[in-house]
């Protein structure tokens, strides 16, 4: 993980800054993908460097089914996100089942009653460590 790049990622940076170095080290060249929940803005200004940005509006079904479920069956793959706490609960629960954990989280100011959270999910179980 290149810390210099992470700091460009606005709200995500504070979450990442709090992440344990070991967890971030597993990210290799950085996040593999960044998820943005468009209920909290379009995220167009986010400069993601190498990571792919995937957007959704509260419902993580498609992103999880098309991308994360497949990626999480292989070792590695670090995901960052700025999403509703509800979407994070779903992703965190699914991640745990596939040997991953939220290694950093930071609750941001609520928008329309839903608090966005910036977070990083990284592999922690030996069977999925890169």
């Amino acid at each position, binding site marked *: 993980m290149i810390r210099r790049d992470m700091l460009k990622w606005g709200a995500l940076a504070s979450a990442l800054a709090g992440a344990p170095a070991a967890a971030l080290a597993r990210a290799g060249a950085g996040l593999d993908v960044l998820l943005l929940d468009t209920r909290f803005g379009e995220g167009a200004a986010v400069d993601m460097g190498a990571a792919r940005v995937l957007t959704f509006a*509260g*419902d*993580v*079904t498609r992103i*999880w*089914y098309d991308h994360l*479920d497949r990626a999480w069956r292989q070792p590695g793959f670090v995901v960052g996100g700025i999403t509703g706490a*509800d*979407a994070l*609960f*779903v992703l965190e*629960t*699914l991640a*745990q*089942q596939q040997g991953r954990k939220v290694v950093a989280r930071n609750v941001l100011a609520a928008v329309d009653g839903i608090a966005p959270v910036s977070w990083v999910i990284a592999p922690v*179980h*030996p*069977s999925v460590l890169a």
Partner: protein
Amino acid sequence: MSVLPPDLDAAGFAAFLDDLRAVVGPDWVWSGDEDMHAYRDSFSPVWNTEQERHASAAVAPADVEQVSAIVRVARRHRVPLFPISTGKNFGYGGPSPNVNGSVVIDLKRMNRVLEVNEARAFALVEPGVSYFDLYREIEERGLKLMVDCPDPGWGSPVGNSLDRGVGYTMPHYRDHFGAHCGMEVVLPDGEVMRTGMGAMPGAQTWQEYPYGFGPDPSGLFAQGNFGIVTKMGFRLLPLPEYYRTCLITVPKRRDFVKLVEHVNYLNDSGLISEVEYGSPLRAKMADPQFMALITKVGGVSDAELDAAAEAAGLPCWQVELQFLGPERATWENWLHAKERILADISGAQAIEGEHFALPASQQQLDHPQQPWTSAIKRKRSLGVPSLGEWKIVRDDGHIGFFPVLPRTGEAVFEMQRVLGDAMKEFPTLPPFFNALTTPLMWHTHTFQMVFAPSIRHDDPAHNAISHAAMKKCVEVAAEHGWGDYRAAPIYQDAVADTYSFNNHALRRFHEQLKDAIDPDGIIAPGRGGIWPRRFRA
């Protein structure tokens, strides 16, 4: 909060974990607060209180041989195991056990779809297979089969059906336990048993004839604690060619009685898929005067609700009908439904909704275009698993009481009134039971209603209210012969207590069985309200 298994000290627990590691390898046993957080019930009404039930450890076997070996180790150390398949039983206890200190046997690694047979319309799966996994297998192989899934699709056919969960397509498929056909079970002594035709070596009909010969024990493994299911077969609906939706409205309160009879007929004749009852008068619920009427003590009269409906220019009730089948059959079935109901109920009206060939396009799944405000959730109605339903979760989760009541309009009115009045004691909760509350037709031949108060991790006072209301609901409903269909561990004793015919003969029978095959309570003691001798003493 670290806990130990019952009757075990720290040294004994450490020795037990060592024995588990010897079976599954060191990476597949977890204990300690951080790792066990994932096995807490995040929807618990007693979250962070002394009453919350905690597991002491978790173990994830790779195959049935390891499951047997774990059971034998647990038996030697007298440690209760709590099996989960995908562990998403939120609202009914999540992955957390009945007994503090139990060890979760997490079957997530046993995630093979063993067979999907298109020509004979069945699947055989392991417990870690989720609805998404089964759907993906069918989609990728282009098979013409439909999976009946719950909201949300991250659970498993095995776990869901073993808690007698429900879905949303044709009557005989949406009762998930009813749609199972054949299982493999590890018994409390570690022995592996197969039910039905699976008991006959060489039989090719395990997923086609559930009974085999002699008594069929498969019912004991649903909401029970007599074994760990390691394989399970399910009947699948051949992918219907066409989907059609229609709406019927009826003007007066009492019309609901006849409407229900007609819909029962359509359901029982296999002419319709799941139905959504509702009331167009819900649009008036923001009006405090109207709200006072529909929540008034003693219930509303026909005349009162009819007058309110007339003033609002709205019918009292509606039912959304869904049809699956060949295009012509869906059309004929709809015509039949319409003619039957409109000829019998004066003022009834019919509206045709969306209809299209299956499989549905992404646009049809994501953006229904109904000419009315619809309660149908398109994906689940078409057997497409989703996680979108998560948005119905308020606060940090909910608990659920879903009483079973007769499929009649009168019974619906009575439950609205009785439970509505009983819940007046809890004025801060939403009025789940009011004069517009309509029944769900989840299971094939019965009605249920929903009581699902929320829980909040940072508000124990609110949780205590939800918890007290749940217990009151169970008690008052039972006085009227309405029983809960499914419950979280923390409510299972109270619910089991209400099934008390002939001095609890059913429970005593279950206890006799449990004592005979699992007296030390190795498999999920307390589940379904069934306690073995060791824990009754």
